[in-house]
C-alpha cells in the first residue's frame, strides 16, 4: 500500500506537476472534514456527492499540510482513480491544499471513529509518542559548492494567498546556505501572483500586491538571517498567472 504523500521531494514534484493532472472535479473549494480512525485522523472533503481523501495527520515533517476546521480549503491536483479508496474517499494524488484565510465557521465537521473506516496502512506517526524519528526524512543538504561558483536559482512555493510560514525555511535554508558558501554579491528576488480556475468555472485570483509582498518578505528574511553584504534586487510580477500551484512562488537567484 502506497502511503500518500511519501516524501518532501515528492511534494515538490507533486506541486509542480499539478497542472498535468487529468481533467475532472478539481480544483475546487470546499469545507474539509476530519474523519477519525482508531489511529490518526484522515482529512477528507465532499464534493457533488463524492468523497475525496486528502491525507492524514502525521507530524511537522510531513509534506501534506492538513487543513483547518473553520476554514475552507482550495484543493488542487488530480484524482488517482487507480488507487483504492482511503477513509472512504477517492485519492487525490498529487494534492495541494491551501487553507483559505477568511473564517468559515460552517466548516466544523469532526466525525468520530466509524467501525467501517480504518486506515489501510500503518501511519508513519501515531497520535502519541513517536518511535524516535520524524515521520518523513528531509533530503540531505547538497555538497558544499566549489569555486568557481555559479549563479543558482531557487524557488519558494506558496499556498493560495499564502505568505511566509512554517514550511518556508525548508525552501529558504538551501538559499541561505548557498549564499553563505559563495559569499553572494547579489540576490535577485522576484515574486509572483497566481490564479486558479476552479472546475465550476470560477476564477480565483490572489490579491494584487501579494507578489511584491512575498518578494519583500523573502528579502527581509535573508537579510535578517545574515545575508547583509549582498546587493538586493527585488521585483514582482503582479499579473495573475492562471494555472496551478506553481504560479504562486518567489524565485531567487544567488549571484556569487
Amino acid at each position, binding site marked *: 500500500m502506497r502511503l500518500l504523500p511519501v516524501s518532501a521531494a515528492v511534494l515538490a514534484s507533486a506541486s509542480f506537476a499539478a497542472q498535468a493532472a487529468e481533467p475532472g472535479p478539481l480544483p475546487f473549494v470546499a469545507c474539509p472534514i476530519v474523519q*477519525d480512525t482508531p489511529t490518526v485522523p484522515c482529512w477528507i472533503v465532499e464534493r457533488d456527492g463524492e468523497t475525496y481523501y486528502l491525507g492524514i495527520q502525521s507530524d511537522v515533517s510531513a509534506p501534506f499540510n492538513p487543513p483547518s476546521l473553520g476554514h475552507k480549503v482550495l484543493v488542487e491536483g488530480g484524482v488517482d482513480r487507480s488507487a483504492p479508496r482511503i477513509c472512504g474517499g477517492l485519492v487525490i494524488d498529487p494534492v495541494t491544499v491551501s487553507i483559505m484565510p477568511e473564517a468559515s465557521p460552517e466548516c466544523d465537521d469532526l466525525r468520530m471513529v466509524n467501525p467501517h473506516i480504518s486506515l489501510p496502512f500503518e501511519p508513519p506517526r501515531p*497520535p*502519541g*509518542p513517536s518511535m524516535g524519528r520524524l515521520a518523513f526524512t528531509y533530503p540531505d543538504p547538497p555538497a558544499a559548492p566549489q569555486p568557481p561558483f555559479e549563479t543558482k536559482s531557487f524557488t519558494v512555493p506558496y499556498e493560495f494567498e499564502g505568505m511566509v510560514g512554517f514550511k518556508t525555511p525548508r525552501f*529558504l*535554508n538551501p538559499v541561505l546556505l548557498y549564499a553563505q558558501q559563495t559569499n553572494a554579491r547579489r540576490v535577485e528576488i522576484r515574486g509572483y501572483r497566481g490564479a486558479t480556475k476552479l472546475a465550476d468555472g470560477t476564477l480565483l485570483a490572489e490579491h494584487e500586491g501579494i507578489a511584491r509582498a512575498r518578494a519583500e518578505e523573502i528579502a527581509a528574511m535573508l537579510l535578517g538571517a545574515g545575508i547583509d553584504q549582498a546587493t538586493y534586487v527585488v521585483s514582482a510580477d503582479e499579473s495573475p498567472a492562471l494555472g496551478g500551484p506553481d504560479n504562486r512562488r518567489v524565485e531567487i537567484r544567488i549571484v556569487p
Partner: protein
Amino acid sequence: MGTTKIGRIRGDRLLLLTGIACFAASAATSSDGPSRWWAPGEGRSFPAYLSYANDSGELGLLNDGGAFETKGHPFFEPLGRNGRACVSCHQPADGMALSLKSIHERWEATDGRDPIFAVIDGANCPNLPQGDPASHSLLLKRGLFRIFLPWPPKARDGTPIKPEFDIEVVRDPGGCNLDPSYGLNSANPTISVYRRPRVVANMQYVLHRNFGIGAFVGKTGEPALRDPENGQPVNMNMMADAREPTVKTQAVEAAITHLQFDGKLSPEQLQRIKDFEYQIYSAQVKLDGAGSLVESDGPPGMGPYNLARGEKGVLGNNITKWVIPVGDAWQVKKPGESDDEFAKRQSILRGQKIFHFRTFWIKDSMYLNNVGLGNPVKRTCATCHGMHMTGMDTANGWMDLGTTNLPWAKEAPRNPWQTEDELMPLFKITCHKDVQPHPYLGRVIYTQDPGRALISGKCNDVGAIVMQQFRGLAAHAPYFSNGSAANIRELIDFYDRRYNIQYSEQEKTDLGNFLTSL
C-alpha cells in the same frame, strides 16, 4: 529512611545523602526561618546542593559549579536604586522563581517594604503609593510583575516596527495603561502587561542550540534572533515574549527595568550571571506520600542530578527518550515500601502515561494547529510539551492556548451579584485589513496580554506566550504567565475545559501527582 543516592557531582564527589543527612546538609537554607529568603547583598555561601521543604514535599537544587560565596556576585547583589538583585525574584526555595506564598511572606515580614514591592514593576503602576495593598493587587493576588513595553514595538536595532494591528485599552484596573505619564497615550507610549517571574534553573535546556534551532523560526519562518557575541541563532525560548536572545542580554534589560540600575553591567559581571544560571538545576526530590523521588533506582527523569546529566535540547515525545523518563522504577513494590508510598508512586507513573499517551483534540491553538499538524489535531500533552526533561518546546515555544486571549482566559464573571472586579487589563486588538485575519480569532481579538505580538507587531502572535518548563512546579505556584492557575489542579482544569478532554477524577489526580513530582 534508606540511603538516598543523589548522584555524582563534578565527577569526583559522590553525594550519598540519607533523608536525614539531606535535610542536615540543607539546613542552613531549608528551614522556615529567615534564611529561607535570600536577601540581596547579604553574602552567604551558596552550597553545591541545597533543598527546601514545600507544600508538596521537598525541592532540590544542584549547583553544578560547586559552592561559592555570593558576596560580590552580580546575581545576588543589589545593583540598582530599588535594592533588588536577580535573586529577589529568583529564589532558591521557589525553584529559582517566586511563589505567591513567598510574596505574601515578604509582605508580612516587611510591611510591604521589601524591594520586590518597588513600585517600578512591583506595583500595578509606578504612580501608586508603595505599601498600600491596593497598589500591589496584581502582585499580591497573582504574583504578577509589571512588564512595560514600547508601542509601537521596536526592532532590536531600535527601528520602529509597523504593527499589523491597532490596540485599544478596554479595561485598565491597574490604571497604568491609561495613565498620562505611563500609558499608551503618554509621551512615550507604553503598554503594561503583568507576568510571572520565570524559573532561572535548568537553563542549559532552556537555552540549548540543538534540535530545531536554525536561522529561521520553525513556526513562523521569520529570522531567529541571534547571539550578539557570535552571530549564531538562538532558540528564543527564555522569556514569555521571546524578546531577548541570551541570558546576558536579558540580564542587561532586567538590570535596567527591574533593578533600576543606571550603570552598565561589566563583561565579567555578565559572565558570572551566565555561569551561575547555566550551572543551577532545580527539581522536586521528595513528594509527600511517595517519599524520595531520587533514590538510586528511582526514575531517571526525576531530581536535579538527573537534569544535570540529561541530554539537552532533544525531543522527548517518543518512546526512546520520553519527555520525563521513568524507566523501570516503581513497577513493583519494594521491601520496606509502604502501601501508601507504593500507591502514590503508581499514581505518578499513571500520570506520566497520561501525559504521553492520553489523546485529545487540540483545536484552534496558534503555532500548534497551523504548523503542519492540522486543526484539530489528535495528540497528547507531550505534543507541545515535548522537550526531554523539561516539557518545554524544543524551539521557539510560543503558542496561544488561550491563557491570555478571550474567550478562554480566566475572567471574573460579570453579573449584578459579582463583587470582585477583574484584576487583569483587557486590550482590543483590531487587525488591519491589509493583513490576513488571525486564523482562529479573526480580525478583532480581546486579550489580557498580547504576548509575542507586543514584540513582533504581528496579528497572528496575539496571545502567543513562550511555554515554561515543568520542573520544580510545586515550589512556585501560581502558574501560567498571568498566574491564572492558582495550583496544579487549576492548571489541569484549564486544559480540560479548553480542549474538552474529559479527564476522569482519577486521571486528574494522577496527572497532578506526576506534575507535582517534577
